[in-house]
């Protein structure tokens, strides 16, 4: 275990996987000498050469489609899309091509590729560089979607994603890039589709992900001082979703709050809420509440006010407890 920054953990995963498997190639804008817009691919060009670290023109559709074609030919491409907000630029390739390749061709071809993209707000990057779009992709059969909250998960999930035989979208959080945490050195895999119970508690379950995991843990501390014992579940993977982890926790607490940074409407909170209602409504002793962003693009100057935070989570939990 060493204290490592989130972005460094990603870089470490890429180094290790490229060393392990010569079919792993890096494709993206400025991923070569510049080392990526946020430093995720730093040092890879020097270590593995320009045959395996490919700088591209600013052509997201071509880049992502190229990764698909290369994956069909047996490579393990890792594409960096500079901001998750640019994924819509290549949406056809992701949704109609990559996600459907295995299905549409009856399993004759597969798309074992990874798309890394930083999402989330917190850097005052404005409406087109701050979004959390995970719900869009989780809605598409054929894609896997993961969102690491900690440096260790950033490494472990990325390594698992690269080895996965299906396309995996790794939505990193740019506001977490500078965060630090213990990261196991060397081989460390976090299974895709497994949530992590970050804190155990008996009164209320908070299901959360990405940056909101930190806010949820902070809220849990505040609530503990009031005698409210909160369980925090970090989903880590959105698709596939660890339904069992959610069910088991709610079975215990009978109360559920879902916290995500994305716009609340039609978000994954709605999905989880519906899922729990469908499967176990008679376990619930209070309404399921969602904490999410207002129905507005991410504002530039009022970003802090806009973003859901620990205080919002505390209020939601209190509301559930006082129902």
């Amino acid at each position, binding site marked *: 275990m060493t204290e490592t920054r989130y972005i460094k953990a990603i870089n470490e995963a890429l180094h290790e996987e490229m060393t392990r498997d010569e079919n792993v190639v890096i494709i993206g804008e400025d991923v070569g000498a510049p080392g990526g817009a946020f430093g995720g691919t730093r040092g890879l060009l020097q270590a593995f050469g320009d045959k395996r670290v490919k700088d591209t023109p600013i052509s997201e559709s071509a880049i992502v489609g190229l990764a698909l074609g290369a994956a069909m030919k047996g490579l393990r491409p890792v594409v960096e899309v500079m901001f998750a907000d640019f994924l819509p630029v290549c949406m056809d390739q992701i949704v109609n091509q990559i996600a459907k390749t295995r299905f549409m061709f009856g399993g004759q071809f597969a798309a074992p590729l990874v798309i890394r993209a930083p999402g989330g707000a917190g850097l005052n990057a404005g409406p087109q560089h701050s979004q959390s779009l995970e719900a869009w992709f989780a809605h598409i059969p054929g894609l896997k979607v993961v969102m690491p909250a900690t440096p260790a998960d950033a490494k472990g999930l990325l390594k698992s994603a690269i080895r996965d035989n299906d396309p995996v979208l790794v939505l990193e959080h740019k506001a977490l890039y500078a965060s630090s945490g213990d990261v196991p050195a060397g081989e460390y895999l976090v299974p895709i589709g497994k949530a992590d119970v970050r804190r155990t508690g008996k009164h209320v379950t908070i299901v959360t992900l990405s940056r909101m995991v930190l806010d949820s843990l902070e809220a849990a501390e505040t609530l503990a001082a009031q005698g409210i014992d909160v369980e925090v579940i970090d989903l880590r993977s959105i698709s596939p979703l660890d339904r069992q982890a959610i069910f088991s926790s709610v079975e215990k607490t009978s109360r559920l709050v879902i916290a995500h940074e994305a716009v609340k409407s039609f978000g994954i909170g709605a999905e989880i809420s519906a899922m729990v209602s469908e499967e176990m409504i008679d*376990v619930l002793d209070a309404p399921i509440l969602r904490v999410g962003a207002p129905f507005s693009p991410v504002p530039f100057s009022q970003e802090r006010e806009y973003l859901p935070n620990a205080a*919002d989570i505390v209020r939601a939990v209190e509301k559930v407890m006082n129902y």
Partner: protein
Amino acid sequence: MSSAILMPKVGLTMTEGKIVEWRKAVGDRVEPGEIVFVFETEKVSFDVEATQSGKVSRIIVGEGETVAIGTEVALLDDASAAAAPAQVAAAPPQGDVPAKDNPASVRAEPAPARGSSKTRATPLARRIAKVNGIDIAQVAATSPGTPLKKRDVESYLAGLAVRTTSAPGSAAMPTPADGRLVKLTSMREVIARKMVASTVEAAQAYMVVSVDAGNLVDARTRLIPSIEKQTGVRPTLTDLFAKIVAVAIERHPVMNTRWTKEGIVFLDAIHMGIATALDDGLVVPVIGNIGTKKLAEIAVERHDLIEKARSGKLPPERMKGSTFSISSLGMFGVEEFSAIINQPESGILAVGAIIDTPVARDGAVVIRPMMKLTLTYDHRIIDGAKAAAFVATLKDVVEEPLLALA
């Protein structure tokens, strides 16, 4: 254009109201200030006036239905303004406090109001009730006005277990098949819930004492002229009695307490609840800080509260916060009875009729105006000896009201 009349919120804790009467029918014109409908919440009914003119085009919520605050209850056509909460005729004395602004949820659209008269209960509470074969409607909420939750059903079950063991072989529940069904008013629902909750929660024990009310009656008779002249209100025996009970409580602070999970709270002020029978129920108006009030003030306040209660205009706030209650059925000739503690208080005094009774005095039988007082106390807090000490003080001051000054 048309606009909606909404179920208004009139108290801090009000979540729903039951419409008891529509004063306007579809097609009627209304003008601002005219009463459109009457609703009741907990123990009080309110007249709702129109705030704008228009024609009633649709009544959405019928009489006898209970809906959440903010629910559209009727539509007005040719209305001049957009949807607005209706104006409550007699505004409650205490203003409503705006709900705590919760950015995370306030950002979302307000939840559509639910127009259900069903018992509100969480799915978990319903499941536990079903598994245990009990009717969820029989369960009382520990926090009135909130939906029934797991803890409510569990505490109901716990109470049921106690009663079942003490009274085995209870008769089968009667069914209303051959009788007349009187639908539950919200007041009846509240009373039922509170009474059941009280018997389930508190360890109620009883103690009866006979007191000689001669001096009490004399004292009142002597006080009547000056107080009536001063206030226009005749002080009742209950007024005087309430004041005297307060004096006794001051000397036994354990009677003015509240049970909480954390511990027993000794309350600073005495707020006296005076249970008052109405034609179709019961209300408990509260004389706040009774210890600091003169008899004249108590009389005026009690008179005012009961008048309002009788006309259904007593704001819910004035029926809350009592720390001890008295209940009198003397006017009906009832000699002796016991009352159920008005939660979360720890005691209630049941006052019987004053009856001329032969008693032994100094070796001789004399006829005295005797009155029986029955104290119901919460044995979780008050031990028998402490209750007895209070009762002894009470007997002293009732029999010699001058001691109240001592």
